[in-house]
């Protein structure tokens, strides 16, 4: 059976994020180099997204307002969903995501900073410290992501998402505080936060591998924005979890 017949019969990958857009060898071979994804382009675009995020975070930090915060959260969520299902639009939706998340992060950081002075700079330092150290580990081959590694990280991330969703539902409809240790500052609560920080950090390795292989296979240029977007999503999650972990430790 030929490759095209097989695709017609069985269909393409069901993964909405990757799908058939990672078919570098056949689809993108004839594209000019200037239209292909590069490592440098992706890193530069990550820089642009970080700058946009910092800019709106500074606004939200100086003018703390719950409306700004929740608008940022909502718009960020919509922009993220559009980017995941329509990566060709990433060049416009990824900057919107970064701007919106900046509003959200600035607001939430002010709240933590008011309670625990100095916590914001600690969380920022540890987030970027984790990013750089995992990049070194990935580039040098100390951490080698495999299919099993991917299975474990994707599954653990899904498990954590499920736990958070059930917690939100229990808080909304159960009347209690949901799954207790998610917010507790006891040994179990801190252990859970450490586990989540670990999983969020290891998601960065998957992002690095996606970007590395994307540039090797010469994916189209818009995938640079998509790669930068996926790094931003993980960094935002990692920052929030580190913030929560530090708050739990300091509240003891």
């Amino acid at each position, binding site marked *: 059976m030929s490759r095209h017949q097989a695709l017609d019969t069985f269909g393409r990958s069901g*993964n909405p994020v990757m799908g058939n857009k990672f078919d570098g060898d056949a689809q993108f071979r004839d594209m000019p180099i200037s239209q292909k994804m590069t490592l440098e382009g992706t890193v530069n675009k990550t820089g642009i997204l970080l700058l946009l995020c910092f800019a709106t975070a500074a606004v939200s930090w100086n003018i703390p307002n719950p409306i700004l915060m929740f608008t940022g959260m909502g718009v960020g969520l919509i922009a993220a969903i559009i980017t995941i299902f329509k990566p060709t639009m990433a060049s416009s939706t990824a900057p919107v995501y970064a701007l919106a998340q900046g509003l959200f992060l600035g607001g939430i950081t002010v709240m933590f900073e008011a309670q625990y002075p100095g916590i914001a*700079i600690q969380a920022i330092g540890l987030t970027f410290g984790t990013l750089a150290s995992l990049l*070194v580990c990935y*580039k040098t081959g100390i951490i080698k992501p495999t299919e099993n590694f991917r299975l474990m990280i994707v599954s653990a991330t899904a498990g954590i998402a499920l*736990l958070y969703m059930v917690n939100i539902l229990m808080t909304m409809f159960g009347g209690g505080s949901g*799954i207790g240790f998610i917010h507790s500052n006891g040994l179990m*609560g801190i252990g859970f936060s450490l586990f989540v920080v670990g999983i969020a950090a290891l998601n960065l390795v998957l992002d690095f591998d996606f970007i*590395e292989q994307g540039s090797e296979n010469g994916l189209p240029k818009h995938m640079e924005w998509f790669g930068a977007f996926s790094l931003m999503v993980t960094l935002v999650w990692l920052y929030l979890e580190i913030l929560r972990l530090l708050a739990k430790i300091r509240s003891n």
Partner: protein
Amino acid sequence: MDLNTIFFGGLALVSLAAFFYLGKFKASKAQTERDDRITWSKRSFSFRSCLTIALGIFLIFFFLSYLGYN
């Protein structure tokens, strides 16, 4: 400026500089030239195994919470 800001601010700046510098280089051969790399064009693991592990993680934490561990 206190010591906390200098240390963690410095860490953030150095880390960002390292990211923007190292990120532009290709990964080492130890990373790129191996047979067990992830194939991003397809999902090689089954949805069932992913769901089983996710539910396992969820249930472990859920029951620990149910038993009153905080």
